[in-house]
């Protein structure tokens, strides 16, 4: 009995901690909104972060998107072949990529690459007193450090998702049409027939929300890092885990609301 209550106790504590962190991140978001609407904006910093979050993530997103589309086509082909519906492979890949896998996988990859870097960079700035130096120079760190990263996350994730969607469908086309001999015309026609503009658009809204989550969580964890190198490492790991979980949980609710 004791062990059961201990498990429930530990689970309850974890949930409470998660909710508390979400509350603090929400407060940070409100602060970001306040500073993001107060000119002058730091356009140079924003452009630099957009390059880091967006341009430098293209390779990994293209690789992930292409192989995801390819494997979806392969799996879909074997499934649909059982009831002679191979022609549905194209639309399945396209719907899967645009509605779900494009935004989710892109966000998870960018979380691992850029979200972790945000936490590590801000964490290092915190433990080496660079954030205190900003305060001392009457320069608000939220405006200088967090707003550019959050703007970059929200703007660049939909852009990366468009790329992931495109290369994913292209990968699916390669496997379906070139390797498995599905008729090219039917492949494309079914995509046009079953994929609405709303599917793409809602996927991009999801991507923007995930971009917001990964950048806010990365910045929050880094900004509140304590305890030297070990603290920075811990903040980085926690940022990736918390952002990934939050993205996956919010994905369910977004899907339920939008589709």
């Amino acid at each position: 009995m004791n062990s059961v209550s201990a498990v429930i106790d530990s689970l309850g504590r974890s949930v409470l901690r998660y909710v508390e962190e979400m509350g603090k991140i929400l407060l940070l978001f409100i602060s970001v909104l306040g500073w993001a609407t107060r000119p002058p904006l730091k356009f140079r910093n924003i452009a630099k972060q957009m390059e880091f979050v967006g341009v430098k993530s293209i390779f990994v997103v293209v690789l992930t998107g292409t192989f995801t589309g390819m494997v979806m086509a392969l799996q879909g082909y074997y499934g649909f072949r059982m009831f002679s519906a191979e022609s549905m492979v194209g639309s399945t890949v396209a719907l899967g990529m645009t509605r779900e896998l494009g935004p989710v996988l892109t966000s998870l990859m960018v979380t691992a690459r850029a979200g972790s870097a945000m936490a590590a960079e801000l964490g290092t700035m915190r433990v080496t007193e660079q954030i205190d130096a900003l305060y001392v120079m009457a320069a608000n760190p939220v405006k200088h450090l967090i707003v550019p990263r959050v703007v970059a996350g929200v703007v660049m994730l939909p852009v990366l998702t468009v790329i992931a969607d495109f290369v994913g469908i292209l990968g699916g086309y390669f496997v379906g049409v070139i390797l498995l001999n599905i008729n090219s015309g039917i492949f494309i026609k079914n995509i046009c027939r079953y994929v609405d503009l709303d599917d793409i658009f809602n996927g991009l809204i999801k991507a923007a929300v995930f971009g917001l989550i990964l950048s806010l969580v990365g910045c929050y964890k880094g900004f509140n890092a304590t305890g030297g190198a070990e603290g920075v490492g811990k903040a980085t790991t926690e940022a990736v885990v918390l952002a990934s979980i939050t993205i996956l949980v919010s994905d369910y609710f977004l899907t339920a609301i939008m589709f």
Partner: protein
Amino acid sequence: MIKIIDLHKSFGKQKVLDGVNLEIEEGKTTVVIGRSGGGKSVLLKHIIGLLKPDSGHIFIDGVDISRLNERELDRVRRDFGMLFQDAALFDSMTVGENVAFPLKEHTEKKDKEIKRIVSDRLMAVGLTGVEDKMPSELSGGMRKRVGLARAIAMHPRIVLFDEPTTGLDPVMTEAINSLIIDTQKNFNLTSIVISHDVKSIFKIGHRIAMLYEGKIVEYGTSEEIKKSKNPVLAQFLSGSAEGPIKMV
């Protein structure tokens, strides 16, 4: 001009400041000495509003900064410069950009004018031709000097030094001490220096305050401090392991 009254601060169960009372004289260098981990940096962070006290007051020109919000604090902070223990230079910026940062942030000066001020400030700390270097390319002493150049970039009235000579060799320690004295004179600064380097404190300090167990236990001029019979101060200055200072 800076008056600290009955300042208390605890972190969890650990009481760090336990009723600090201290008055900092304008245009003078006040050195706060004390054991490592004794709350000196915490005191400094209260003076610039980086930490809020549990109770007590910090008056700057008659304004209690412990009651100010972040925006009001920013206005007060423009009168301050601070040299951090490890300089706290921005890694992602060049030396020139670091020194120019407060000028770009708070003035409408043209790039050419900012460049000239940056060059002047770097020269004032004995550095030339380092504007394009990254902080990672500099030695510890050079980083501190760049940190000082950045701290005085806006021509502040008050400069805070957090252990400016810690981790430096004796020659560089002497160079930094001379810089603190020169900049204090040249810019007519009110300086507050946190240190536990006994040799340096008598060289740079007009006034010396000893912080022990969260309180200022001794305060006076260099001569008064040297003559003091306070056993805590005597043990600290002699560097003896025997005495009233508890080893934790």
